[in-house]
């Protein structure tokens, strides 16, 4: 509750900061202050179980330690994102304050989709999440790629909104309780009614779109590629895991009881996502685009949570959110500094910029899922959840095989970093402040700590 209020308010603050602030960096510092505030109020709510301001939402949002922990992860990652990439936001265009405002609105949407208890707020939350993103995608106005990405994202996003609404309509229609509350949906007994099933599939499709699960992923590579890199980083991490959170929240609370009836769909989607994400990433020459595909691949792994839909899966999802976001933000932060986004651009980074090389290595290892990194733990929790589910064990085997393929493209970057000769002018060294490097190192260390002892995060779920 705190988070909704503060993120919305701070968005407005940021909106005005652009107008009144003289220095270009003021909005950035304000934003950092805002996210710290957001993190703190959220932490207070997590710790005390009571919000500072109470609004009677008529049970439209439900707040518990689980989604508060998730929000803490999101805000923490955003803080890291601001610290690492804040300066690069300034470089996108004139409207720095507005960019940050939009990001805060997105965070408001994230909070909504993490806490909603009614389909209406899910819908509004998803929209609040999406609309600022359409804008951020197109914020590099002179860049045709950015324009194109914005339009693609917008058109397909609007299309998926339509689908989601159709799903909501069917579910409402099929719900004898005539309610949009997700915990108040009467699924009946035995086989789902056709209308309910159709609604479920519509919702599944639109949420799959949001989390870029195959075959609804097509927007992802183009949009991630076209958007200004600094926003791609945000989209690919925080927004994506939020969508996942919304996804699992809906399907657990509303349709958890009939899990068996839609599990097959998830299996199909999961396998398709793993397949397309991993395989297609192999051929990419641009690291940015490769990361886009890899985000699809990672989504495939996160879908295992939906497949399993048990406690372990939720723990895993939170862990995955943290691990995946941290590593991806880190690798994007390095990528942004590059003049060349191709794999060759990374050539000899380990030699010319050892700190960057080393931290990038840890991020990539984490994304691959090498033990003692957070990436491994999160993947492991997902697999464990899938195994605990007890059905379709083969999907675990498929998942691990695709993980092996993922080593292929992540390690190509690693090879470039360490084993290829140094390329001239790979990086604008002026941008690399000491703080930036220290932050990267801290991130890497945190990834390892999380990899060794994931319970520092998971324990909050049961606080």
């Amino acid at each position, binding site marked *: 509750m705190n988070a909704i209020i503060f993120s919305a308010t701070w968005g407005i603050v940021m909106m005005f900061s652009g107008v009144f602030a003289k220095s270009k960096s003021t909005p950035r510092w304000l934003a950092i202050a805002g996210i710290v505030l957001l993190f703190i109020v959220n932490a207070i709510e997590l710790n005390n179980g009571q919000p500072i301001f109470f609004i009677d939402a008529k049970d439209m949002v439900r707040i518990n330690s689980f989604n508060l922990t998730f929000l803490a992860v999101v805000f923490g990652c955003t803080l890291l994102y601001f610290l690492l990439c804040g300066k690069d936001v300034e470089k996108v265009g004139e409207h720095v304050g507005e960019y940050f405002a939009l990001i805060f609105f997105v965070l408001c949407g994230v909070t909504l989709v993490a806490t909603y208890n009614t389909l209406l707020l899910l819908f509004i939350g998803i929209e609040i999440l999406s609309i600022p993103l359409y804008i951020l995608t197109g914020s590099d106005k*002179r860049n045709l790629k950015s324009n*194109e990405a914005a339009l693609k994202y917008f*058109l397909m996003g609007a299309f998926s909104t339509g689908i989601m609404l159709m799903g909501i309509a069917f579910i*409402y229609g099929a719900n004898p309780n005539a309610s949009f509350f997700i915990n108040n949906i009467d699924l009946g007994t035995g086989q789902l009614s056709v209308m309910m099933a159709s609604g479920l599939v519509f919702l599944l499709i639109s949420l799959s779109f949001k989390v870029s699960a195959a075959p609804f992923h097509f927007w992802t590579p183009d949009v991630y590629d076209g958007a200004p890199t600094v926003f791609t980083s945000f989209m690919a991490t925080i927004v994506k895991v939020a969508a996942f959170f919304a996804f699992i929240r809906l399907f657990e609370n509303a349709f958890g009881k009939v899990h068996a009836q839609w599990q097959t769909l998830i299996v199909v989607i999961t396998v398709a996502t793993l397949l397309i994400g991993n395989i297609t990433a192999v051929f990419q020459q641009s690291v940015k685009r490769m990361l886009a595909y890899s985000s699809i691949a990672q989504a495939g792994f996160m879908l295992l949570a939906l497949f399993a839909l048990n406690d372990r899966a939720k723990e895993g999802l939170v862990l995955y959110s943290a691990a995946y976001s941290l590593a991806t933000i880190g690798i994007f932060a390095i990528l942004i500094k590059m003049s060349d986004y191709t794999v060759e651009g990374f050539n000899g980074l380990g030699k010319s910029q050892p700190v960057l090389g080393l931290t990038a290595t840890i991020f990539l290892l984490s994304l691959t899922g090498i033990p003692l990194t957070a990436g491994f733990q999160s993947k492991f929790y997902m697999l464990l959840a899938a195994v605990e589910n007890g059905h379709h064990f083969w999907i675990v085997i498929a998942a691990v095989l695709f993980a092996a393929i993922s080593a292929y493209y992540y390690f190509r970057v690693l090879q470039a970093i360490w084993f290829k000769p140094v390329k001239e002018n790979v990086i604008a060294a002026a941008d690399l402040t000491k703080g930036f490097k220290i932050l990267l190192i801290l991130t890497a260390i945190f990834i390892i700590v999380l990899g060794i002892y994931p319970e520092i995060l998971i324990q909050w779920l049961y606080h």
Partner: protein
Amino acid sequence: MDIKAYIALSLTLFSIGIIGVLTRRNAILVFMCVELMLNAVNLLLVAFSKMHAASGIAKASVHYASDAQIFVFFIMVVAAAEVAVGLAIIVMLYRNTHSVDINFLNRLKN
């Protein structure tokens, strides 16, 4: 009126919207087709609300029938916001490329 009639109508409109998205190349028209899809949903929601009112199961709630209509109202709100952003994007693109043909957009691929 049987609810099936509304479902059929709504789905038909919805599908026409989808077909429009699939077949038109003008970004504005594609967007309009999406709006058509939204309207189909709106109609269906209202119909459902009246259906529930008719079946009377949810009579316990005072506002049982208002929920869906409020929802429709919010859909319109969102649609308006979307239109603002969407048209802005289309205009921006048009300014840069002098075209609103979506097939023209393939700098980003593979």
